């Protein structure tokens, strides 16, 4: 294997890591909002179920959850695993896990909103829907941004856990090449990639925070 082949393999791994990252965000950001509402529901049964879900997602290793989502259907129901289910299972596993974390961040943000904002909106005649989307949510976004930055940075690194179910993402590729060719170089490249990736994530989040700093 020459150098350029190796780089190409690593490059494919990077693309897969980026795909896992982006798709996880696409699904878990809105799903987290749904989970947050379930967690704050007045219905004790819904609230209890969601609370349990969050505690399982946060209380067990993501790697274990990925393995369960991937192999579960086969061992529990005898479903034959199709070849593209590996990728789907990865996205499902990551999204379910991250939705739980995001939900708790959203909930913290929503619950930190002063009661007066709701009351002012109510007296002015805004309905519940308008109050949430016009008054509450935009302020919550600003409040949760620092916590969201942390979580997003963790997600970049967590994509490497997909190697647990043999997803051909960057970490998986790098460790395989390193093992077969007895060289540390691919691992160094992977490390550099995660670092640069997170550098960009942090940069973007900082830009968003700046944009929202027009008010206190």
């Amino acid at each position, binding site marked *: 294997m020459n150098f350029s082949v190796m780089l190409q393999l690593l490059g494919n791994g990077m693309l897969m890591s980026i795909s896992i990252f982006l798709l996880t965000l696409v699904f878990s950001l809105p799903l987290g909002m749904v989970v947050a509402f379930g967690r704050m529901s007045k219905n004790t049964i819904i609230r209890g179920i969601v609370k349990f879900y969050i505690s399982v997602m946060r209380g067990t290793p993501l790697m274990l959850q990925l393995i369960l989502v991937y192999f579960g259907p086969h061992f529990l129901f005898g479903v034959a695993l199709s070849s593209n289910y590996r990728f789907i299972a990865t996205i499902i596993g990551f999204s379910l896990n991250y939705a739980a974390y995001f939900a708790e961040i959203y909930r913290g943000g929503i619950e930190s909103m002063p009661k007066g904002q709701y*009351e002012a909106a109510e*007296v002015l005649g*805004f309905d519940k829907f308008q109050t949430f989307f016009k008054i509450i949510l935009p302020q919550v976004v600003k409040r949760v941004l620092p916590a969201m930055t942390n979580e997003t940075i963790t997600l970049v690194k967590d994509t490497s856990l997909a190697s647990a179910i043999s997803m051909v993402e960057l970490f998986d590729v790098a460790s395989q090449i390193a093992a077969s060719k007895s060289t540390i170089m691919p691992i160094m490249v992977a490390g550099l990639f995660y670092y640069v990736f997170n550098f960009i994530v942090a940069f973007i989040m900082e830009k968003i925070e700046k944009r929202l700093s027009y*008010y206190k």
Partner: protein
Amino acid sequence: MGQVLLEIKNLKKTFNEDLHVLKGIDLCVKEGEVVSIIGPSGSGKSTLLRAATFLETIDGGEIKYLDKVAATTENGVVKYASKHELKEIRNYFGLVFQNFNLFPHFSVIKNITEAPIHTDHVSKDVAYERALKLLSKLGLSEKKDAYPCELSGGQQQRVSIARALAKEPKILFFDEPTSALDPELTGEVLKVIKELAKEHMTMIIVTHEMQFAREVSDRMIFMEHGVVQAEGTPDEIFNSDNARVQEFIGKF
């Protein structure tokens, strides 16, 4: 003075089963009247305003705006009007909070125009025109694009008054509009309220500013322990022979 705009009868409110905060309040306000409510801390003044503006549900009595019954009690059970009717009735009043409760992420002009545009379906142009007129009246024209955090407390409170007025309410409630302000800023807010009084805006004002209340009110109400202890013109209240009223006013 004109028709009765607000009629509250035998209003009761209890917190936590046994904290009887309002024990049967009667209050009737006519168009153009300025009524101020005074009384010691914890007497239930804020609770009364919050009940009248539906921020608290009542446990007994009746609330009526014009000919529309918002809440009434039948056989000991309180019944509120439908959601739709309450929405309509809400348009009759505005509330100015002690701590403003402006929307911090909206500019001044947006704080004022958002409700008329999205809840009353006033056109954008009309809403902006109305808001600019109010801002110039309240001396805030040059602040229209500022954010609340860039304003002094007095300016913020004036914006919140403009925000309430932009919905063109028939009655405006104030809950201690100057209590959160530094003493040197209360004047500018009280001046605005006095001007509104001159224009015969109907107002119900909870305040600890006795001199202001005396000047601006047609009628004053002294509340204590959840009941109206005394009621009358400012002169009647200030010269009351009710010992509690004397003691309370004597403190100022």
